[in-house]
């Protein structure tokens, strides 16, 4: 891509980030943050990092945006409109000086490092041994599988932490209904959710499969699944399950548990997370499919938030 395009993109990124950070209205800030996330995705495309572009747009812009909008709506219902009170001038000047100095230091150190793709030459000859072609998937699930294993547990831990914020008496309830309160809008979202959920499932399953050789992967696919589940929940097509359902818990731990089991079994083949010769692709695909399911359910529940006291439906039967 041309330099002019890069330059304009960078300026737009800085502009949307500036508005998202400093505009007075919180909803406008979140809207600009989502635009910022999508522009970041374009940047990753420009850098030839399609895997990251998918993750950035789906997770960085999409899921984070929905999370922030839901949090803002819940704050608004409590009478908090999330506008900022003014800060003293000395603080702003001090922060400006400190941050400007930090940016100069950071820029100087960044310019002292020549951009180069040295590890690409290291990774490329190792790929045939794995039987897959997507180098990023190779790094994520073979060369640095340790990181990804821990990351899947971080996601699970975050959900446990969010659930632990449930108010007294709410456990083990369901999260607050994210459904639209306006009846016509709920019908529209309901119909859309019914159509979207199967499409999202197919697309997500394809993204995992494609992730072996083409851009894609478990995290991007999990986000697509989470998006489908959330839209369906917003339209009332599916209800969010209560947190103690055995099936739900099984879905949450399946991915990390399978990953850990395969990793431990690798000790027999030479070390933790080592795949036996010739079986790498099969094992990677198994890990990715189970991980994708767990990531999708975990992300959807992370967005939905902790269980709330259930006053309207005393019956404990849940559907999901």
């Amino acid at each position, binding site marked *: *891509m041309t330099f*002019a395009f*890069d*330059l304009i993109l*960078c300026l737009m*990124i*800085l502009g949307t*980030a500036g508005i*998202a*950070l400093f505009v007075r209205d919180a909803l406008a800030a979140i809207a600009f*943050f989502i635009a*910022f996330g999508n522009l*970041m995705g374009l940047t*990753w495309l*420009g*850098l*030839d*990092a399609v895997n*990251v572009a998918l*993750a950035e747009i789906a*997770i*960085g812009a999409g899921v*984070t945006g929905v*999370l*922030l909008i839901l949090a803002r709506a*819940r704050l608004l219902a409590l*009478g*908090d409109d*999330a506008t*900022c009170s003014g800060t003293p001038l000395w603080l702003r000047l001090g*922060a400006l000086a*400190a*941050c*400007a100095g*930090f*940016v100069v230091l950071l820029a100087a150190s*960044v310019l002292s*490092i020549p*951009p*180069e*793709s*040295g*590890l*690409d030459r290291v*990774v490329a000859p190792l790929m045939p041994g794995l039987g897959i072609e997507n180098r*990023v998937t190779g*790094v994520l699930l073979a060369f*640095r599988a340790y*990181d990804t294993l821990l*990351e899947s547990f*971080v*996601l699970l831990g*975050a959900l446990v932490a969010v659930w632990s*914020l449930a*108010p007294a008496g709410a456990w083990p309830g369901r999260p*607050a209904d994210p459904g639209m309160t306006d009846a016509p809008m709920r019908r529209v979202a309901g119909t859309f959710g019914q159509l979207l959920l199967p499409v999202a499932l197919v697309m997500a399953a394809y993204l995992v499969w494609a992730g072996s050789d083409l851009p894609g*992967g478990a*995290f991007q696919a999990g986000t697509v699944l989470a998006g489908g589940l959330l839209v369906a929940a917003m339209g009332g097509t599916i209800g969010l399950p209560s947190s103690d359902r055995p099936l739900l818990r099984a879905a949450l731990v399946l991915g990390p548990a399978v990953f850990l089991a395969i990793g431990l079994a690798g000790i027999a083949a030479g070390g933790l997370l080592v795949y036996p010769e010739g079986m790498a692709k099969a094992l990677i695909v198994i890990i990715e499919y189970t991980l994708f399911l767990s990531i999708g359910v975990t992300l959807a529940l*992370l967005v939905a*938030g902790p269980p709330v006291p259930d006053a309207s439906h005393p019956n404990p039967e849940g559907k999901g």
Partner: protein
Amino acid sequence: MDLPLSDILSAGHLYALTGAVLVGLGLYAFITQRHPLRQLLAVNVVGAGIFLILGSLGRGPDATDPFPQALVITGIVVAVALTAFGAAMIVRQAETRAAAKPAADDNARGAS
């Protein structure tokens, strides 16, 4: 386009510098914006800036280093986990504060 700047600055450096400015902007907003939800947004911008520095410095002449790409994907997922926990804590704190107020206000809960 034949801009003179492009001779001095490679695309990798241009994006890395943008990332550096994003980190600074986010830090400034984190210090000066006093609402926790806005600070959470600022943390996300700082994170995006760091990811951009990390990823763009792996931009070689013909390929982008897959190693930082994988790290950035991991980072994005961890950032969303942090954001979810932060948002839940902020809402919970507001609920506690609203409940502690004199019971005069009859807030219509469940409308969220």
